[in-house]
């Protein structure tokens, strides 16, 4: 029970709603009541690259002699090459996809806040999209239970600001990372958090949803009530925002498309100080079994432009924010017959945030020599994704229960933060 909530409920009571001929409560009064105090909260944004991103073309090991041999026509060319997809220098071994100019600039800047962890994964690996996404999001060794790592963290901690909503996914439904006993919220766009129709219809429906006795109903029916109730919660909590007319700060320009829109909306929510600690957002379309070069470029450009705009827009508020990318696997090292790549094993994660040990490719790099490859075909998953998440959770979010969140994982430091 939070103060904005009780204000709303007090108002509802005063309206004696069910029989009221017309309830004339001004919507802006409710919006004002819904605005909690401004606070500074540590925030983690998890950006999931759905489909299995080809990280060997995003953070390309152009300095590894085997790379060009395995990817003769689709690989990124070393910096300074006269033609092809010419990479942006990161260090002696790696270069970044040329579409990622913004992230590259942040990576190479003094006091860099961007680190890349290459050769990320887990053992035993799984090359199914759906199984591996579930593993990355549950952070469990098997997916016999669907309990997300974010949710487990929320279960054993409390909101530093008593915020009513601690985790929000900018998606149509919750990601697996937020599945579990702790109530998390999902909406594809904060612009959707508007009730279509008259105010009194809304209050009336809300009262029915909240007051109906659901004990004894089937679980699916109870869930339908909870969903309705959560929806009203979000409408109230976000009542003071105006995502449609939000103007990014510091001249930030978000790219067109879903990712830019989602990160722009997250930036507005973070600045509003609602106390939300975790955001999840997706960038889809990374399953490039064919035509990798032309398919991956627009996604790389979008990713870089959106993340760059996000931190530009956040400005000073960005000191509390870490953004981490993940994908369910990397791709096979050798290109396939369709100028694409099939599902692989080792991938990469990007970590962007004030306290990040930036400007480096972190973790163990196993290399692409034939003997170093997993099963002779895949980048070996030398660094465990859970260790990256653990460092963010413990050192950024102040988590104290990594053993609960990452059960069974024996931590191997990576040094992201």
């Amino acid at each position, binding site marked *: 029970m939070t103060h904005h909530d009780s204000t709303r409920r007090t108002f509802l009571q005063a309206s004696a*709603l069910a029989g009221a001929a017309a309830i004339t409560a001004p919507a802006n009064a409710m919006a004002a009541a819904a605005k909690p105090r401004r606070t500074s909260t540590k925030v983690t944004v998890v950006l999931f690259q759905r489909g299995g991103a080809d990280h060997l073309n995003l953070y390309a090991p152009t300095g590894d002699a085997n790379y060009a041999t395995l990817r003769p026509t689709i690989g990124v060319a070393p910096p300074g090459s006269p033609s092809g997809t010419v990479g942006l220098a990161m260090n002696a071994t790696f270069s970044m996809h040329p579409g990622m100019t913004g992230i590259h600039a942040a990576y190479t800047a003094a006091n860099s806040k961007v680190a890349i962890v290459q050769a990320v994964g887990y053992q035993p690996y799984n090359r199914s999209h759906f199984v591996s996404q579930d593993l990355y999001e549950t952070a469990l060794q098997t997916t016999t239970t669907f309990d997300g790592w974010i949710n487990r963290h929320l279960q054993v901690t409390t909101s530093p600001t008593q915020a009513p909503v601690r985790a929000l996914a900018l998606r149509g439904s919750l990601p697996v990372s937020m599945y579990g006993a702790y109530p998390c919220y*999902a909406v594809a766009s904060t612009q959707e958090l508007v009730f279509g129709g008259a105010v009194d219809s809304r209050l009336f429906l809300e009262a*029915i949803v909240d007051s109906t006795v659901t004990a004894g109903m089937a679980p699916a029916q109870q869930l*339908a009530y909870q969903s309705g109730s959560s929806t009203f919660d979000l409408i109230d909590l976000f009542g003071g925002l105006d995502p449609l007319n939000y103007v990014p700060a510091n001249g930030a320009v978000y790219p067109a498309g879903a990712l830019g829109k989602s990160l722009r909306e997250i930036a507005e929510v973070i600045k509003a100080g609602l106390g939300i600690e975790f955001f999840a957002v997706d960038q*889809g379309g990374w399953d490039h079994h064919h035509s990798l070069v032309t398919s991956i470029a627009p996604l790389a450009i979008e990713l870089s432009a959106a993340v760059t705009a996000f931190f530009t827009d956040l400005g000073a508020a960005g000191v509390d924010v870490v953004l981490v990318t993940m994908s369910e696997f990397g791709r096979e090292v050798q290109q396939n017959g369709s100028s694409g790549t099939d599902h692989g094993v080792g991938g990469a994660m990007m970590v962007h945030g004030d306290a990040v040990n930036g400007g480096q490719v972190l973790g163990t790099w196993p290399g692409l020599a034939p003997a170093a490859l997993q099963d002779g075909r895949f980048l070996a998953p030398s660094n465990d994704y859970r260790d990256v998440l653990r460092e963010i959770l413990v050192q950024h979010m102040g988590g104290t229960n990594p053993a609960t969140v990452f059960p069974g994982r024996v931590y191997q430091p990576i040094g992201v933060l």
Partner: protein
Amino acid sequence: MHRTLSRRELCLPTSVAKPAPPPPVTAEVHLLSRATFGPTPQALAEVQALGIAAWVDRQLDPYSIDDRAFEALLPTLVAPTANNGADIRLLARAIYSKRQLAWRLTHFLNNHFSTNRVETTGISESNEDDTFFKHCFTTFGTVLRDSAQSPAMIDYLDSQSNIAIAPNENYARELLELHTLGVGNYTEADVAAIARVFTGWARVNVLSGTTAVGSSFLFRANVHDTGPKTTSLGWSTPGFSGSAGVNEGLQFLQFLATHGATATRFVTKLCQYFVGDQPSAGLLSRAVRAFSSSGGDLQQTVRAILLDHEFQNGSTAKTKVHDGFEFVVNAVRRFGLAAINTTAMNTRVGLLRCPPHLCPVPIGHPELGGAWQGSGNVLSRWDFADDLVNDRIGGAVMPWTTLFGATPPPTGALWAVALCDRFVDGAVPATTILALTVFMDARLATLPANPTWAQVRPHARELASVVTRLPESQLH
């Protein structure tokens, strides 16, 4: 974070200690809510006249049902070659076809063998739907082969570029993981071997003059890997050359179609679609037996599910969440909306995030309700419902007098019951009926005696806007 208001605060009767459970949905209505895209008075009359078993059997023989009037109308709605042609045709069939059960199953199969028209073509999606419909009551092996050779699937999962010198594993993996056995029942080496089995499976454009008007399956023997392949599944092939090379894939598909793991996985999904998110072990085992003992006969399997006593006893009634497509079609059918603009309606299906040929991932749209209960999905259904009852979508006009009589119902109680019966089969708690009654009575009280429809209609829309957004209205 919610506090529950007392009934006093709600102006609801406080004497009711426990609300009466909602009236049970009848077996006939429950059947229609699952075997069709939404009950209509005509369909209900049919079930009542024929009896449940005879109605199911009639639906299981779709060509015995005269649907010519509707099928004749179909080409006037959209060309099957249009980008969104398959979407609109499937939507129109779901709303208007009398062969409801066959289209329900086709809708399921289209999603089980999910393809995305961004990477295929409108005509190949249309043709694939038509083929699934034609074969939906044959065997699983038949539709599995239809899917494997469908130009839509060949484009979507890269069979076209799967060639001997450079196999592409995309189709082989999803065939094993999603279409048949499921994860845990094959190895990575099997994926690699099966990709080689399907090398050379391709499609070719069908030309009219020099214009491509569609495409059809083509086996390209010259790019087929003719070597031997072995799997951990107990299936292997010595490898065939020439045109016989296609038989490797055909034989393997037949092997998969009759595999026990396929039966379990596919029938479980089918039961989740028709029965509930967690079908009982008993019902599931009876359905799997019907499938396995009949060689994967879908007619017998669907019959076994719908006539199972656990389906019939209504214990799972009103427990399935409508996905967006189902919510739209259900609402249009229940309100009897005629002459809608199916293109506009299809656009709305897109906003509800489950367009049938645009799923972004090969696993298809989720069958389980949790996926459709995020606030964004809830709001998109609410917005649709509000727009629909206010005549704001695609020329659809609420037929108030057809639904509720030439004279508007005079009391709030009559309104509440009539709307809930029409849209939710009356399956709402008594407390909600009471609240709706008070809500409508307060509005009727502002009107003169014997109000006209023109006077009542704005308030009827308000009430309908609430009823269509009730938690119970999200379920079927």
